[in-house]
């Protein structure tokens, strides 16, 4: 069982937060991609070209369907009724999350020239359950309507997108990637969803190392980015103002950083899991998340984290308040 080390000033006691291991399940297969639902109990995973659904509460695991191609990414909607899967072909496929039925494939028909054939890389479903955002190689973003199955807008950006996120309120889309002239995926761009995507701002998270994740705060007002070198940055979603920058001692590479809805508090995941507060720095950390190859997922609330290791063990941590 993992132990928490609380870094507190000597003799001090206070309210705080920590992630506590709440469950462990052995999966039927080793997932390559993992996602947590907004209900904090549904886990969707892709393993061996199969789509799996797990329920953490009743500990059930269901193989929904087989995928025709290996998946590069997938995204689920807010009420977990559907999942969009980017599976190698140009079209993103939509499946019913209860039955596993293939509902439709998103179409690129009518897109000019070679754009109709470029595979989707990362995808994100909007909170309205209709909007689908997909990055492709060749510096394009497709915005599609999942109800009609058609693309609606194509944005050409200055760099190949490596990751994309939609804010919980559906107002913003964030993209990070590498400019063409550089191999460093250190750029972050924010768009406003308004009759397509209106570019708002672009910032360097880090000019030397790649960004590894971007996530919105649960209230959508902030974007949290972290990277392989320069710690975590918190940006104001609307204007791009840098609200906070924190680099853990030793400039450790971070895999993800997120807000769990408590003001000025964030979780950072590298080899360790840390809780940091704006005015205090690291206030709690859990040493050693073990295998750096493990896959993990964070719920939309930021309060549940799941990790799968190479032995098919799914561990779940939940945020608890302690005194």
């Amino acid at each position, binding site marked *: 069982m993992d132990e928490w080390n609380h870094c507190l000033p000597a003799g001090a006691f206070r309210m705080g937060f920590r992630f506590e291991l709440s469950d462990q399940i052995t999966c039927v297969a080793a997932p390559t991609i993992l996602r947590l639902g907004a209900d904090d109990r549904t886990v969707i995973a892709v393993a061996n070209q199969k789509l799996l659904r797990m329920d953490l509460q009743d500990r059930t695991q269901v193989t929904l369907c087989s995928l025709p191609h290996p998946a590069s990414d997938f995204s689920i909607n807010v009420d977990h009724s559907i999942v969009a899967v980017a599976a190698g072909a140009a079209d993103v496929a939509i499946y019913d999350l209860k039955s596993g039925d293939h509902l439709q494939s998103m179409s690129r028909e*009518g897109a000019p020239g070679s754009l109709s054939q470029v595979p989707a890389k990362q995808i994100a479903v909007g909170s309205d359950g209709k909007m689908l955002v997909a990055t492709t190689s060749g510096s394009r973003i497709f915005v599609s309507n999942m109800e009609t199955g058609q*693309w609606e807008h194509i944005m*050409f950006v200055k760099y190949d997108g490596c990751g994309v996120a939609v804010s919980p309120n559906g107002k913003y889309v964030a993209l990070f990637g590498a400019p063409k002239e550089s191999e460093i995926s250190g750029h972050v761009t924010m768009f406003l969803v308004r009759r397509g995507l*209106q570019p708002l701002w672009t910032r360097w998270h880090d000019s030397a190392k790649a960004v590894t994740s971007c996530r919105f705060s649960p209230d959508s007002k902030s974007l949290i980015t972290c990277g392989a070198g320069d710690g975590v940055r918190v940006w104001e979603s609307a204007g791009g103002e840098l609200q906070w920058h924190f680099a853990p001692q030793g400039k450790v590479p971070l895999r993800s950083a997120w807000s769990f809805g408590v003001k000025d508090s964030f979780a950072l995941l590298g080899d360790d899991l840390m809780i940091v507060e704006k005015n205090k720095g690291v206030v709690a950390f859990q040493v050693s998340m073990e295998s750096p190859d493990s896959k993990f997922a964070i719920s939309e609330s930021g309060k549940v984290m799941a990790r799968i290791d190479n032995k098919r063990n799914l561990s779940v941590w939940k945020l608890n308040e302690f005194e």
Partner: protein
Amino acid sequence: MEMKRRELLHSGLSGGSFLAFGGFSALNSLVSASNQRISSDEEIERLAGKIMETEPESVVDLVVNELNSGLSRQDFLAACLNAGLRFHGHHSAYVAHPVRVVSDTISRHASLLPLFYHLSVLRFRAARASLRWLDKTKIPHPDKAIQQFHSAMKSGEKDDAGLAMVTMCRAMGPQQAYPHLFTYAAERNHNSGGHTAVSVVNTLRTLQATDWRCAESALQFAVTDAAWQLPGGSQVHAENRVRAERIDSLPKSWANTASDEGGTRELVSLYRKGNPVIACKETFSLLQQGKMRAGTVWDAVFLTTAEMVVRYQFVGGKRLAGHSVTCVNALHYLFRTTPVESTRLYCLLEAVEWTTSFLARERARPALREFDLLSLESNEVSKDKSEGLEEIFSLLPPRRFAALHRPGFDDVDLAMKKSLAWLGQHSDDRAFLQRAMWLMCIKSTPEVHDFKYPMALFENCRYASAVWRPLLLASSVHVLHGTDMEESAIVSQAKERLG
């Protein structure tokens, strides 16, 4: 078709520039032994360099300070052109002309904003050396310059052509040197997407507005653009050359701007077939028989190209079909300004060739929806001038930089129909144009076609027959920004600083 020396000298004599040189003997002394750099106005170059070196967030302040210190609008434009020629090339230089036109035409209080838009284009991308350095030891003797120029143009030797043009520019003046480019501008557009004509004409017109400063750089740039774009596989231009040589077989009134509505409709039907061979042959035949005049042909060209813009499949993006409009706009300028009659005919026939072959190409991609602009019907719009304009421009969706939108033309087509109604209600279209230009200034993206397409369309409108103007103007909404589009950051900043 190359302008014969005698014709050139004749046109030069009328301007007096040849006499000023004291005849051919004086030309010899003008072979420069000075530096390698093609000469330019130092002050303009200084400002162009400062514009490109200053941090993007400070460039508006830099220019506003220069304006407050006495920088003229003309010099601002010249500096932007110079920066475009030296540090970006192509579109950054082409756009100087439509920027200048908007600046001259828009309401007085906004006349500087188009120039700040040009600034935003220049600062959007990283600068790179654009103009090639020429080897001064190879500058030809003036006696050989014209011959070398045309020889190099035929073989695509852009450096030799550039050097020869520099000599011609220094010897006879840029105004006399430019016409040597006209026939190449007319026939070398297929591989350049119509940009050869645009390059030659837009730089020429900008130089006219800036007192011919930086003429050598501009000429070198235009020559480079024209030299390497050889005519390509089509032989239609060769047939058109032969037709143009038969200028004497046409009635003297062939170039008349008078137009005939029925004839225009017939020609539009013909041009829509997208067959340049038949279109050029038929057009020449009709001119020869006196059944049509140039005005009718130009109306048909303007309508077919505007219709292509409306038919383009996607909302937003570069709307490649708009190059149909810009190229014929440039060719029309050559048509109405060149003193050589056979060149005028050649430009007209090449405009027909360009229109029809470009249409065929776009249709094959496929990039065009079905739409008959000539059958456009109007839709109700507020009778109040301002309210009506607000109705129209509020319908237009955002057209963002480098973005395409699924074909969904309901809103834009409705705006087009309302525009037709508005233009029918109000005899004076200036309010429409002013609103369009204002939105163009404050909303345009670094995609220079935001300026190029509308201004070319507006000018085509001006030269079209009155009966077709409302249609042409209404079609322009397909390339205009509406009120829903976000503002340009640099232009907003300039607006605030200028007060």
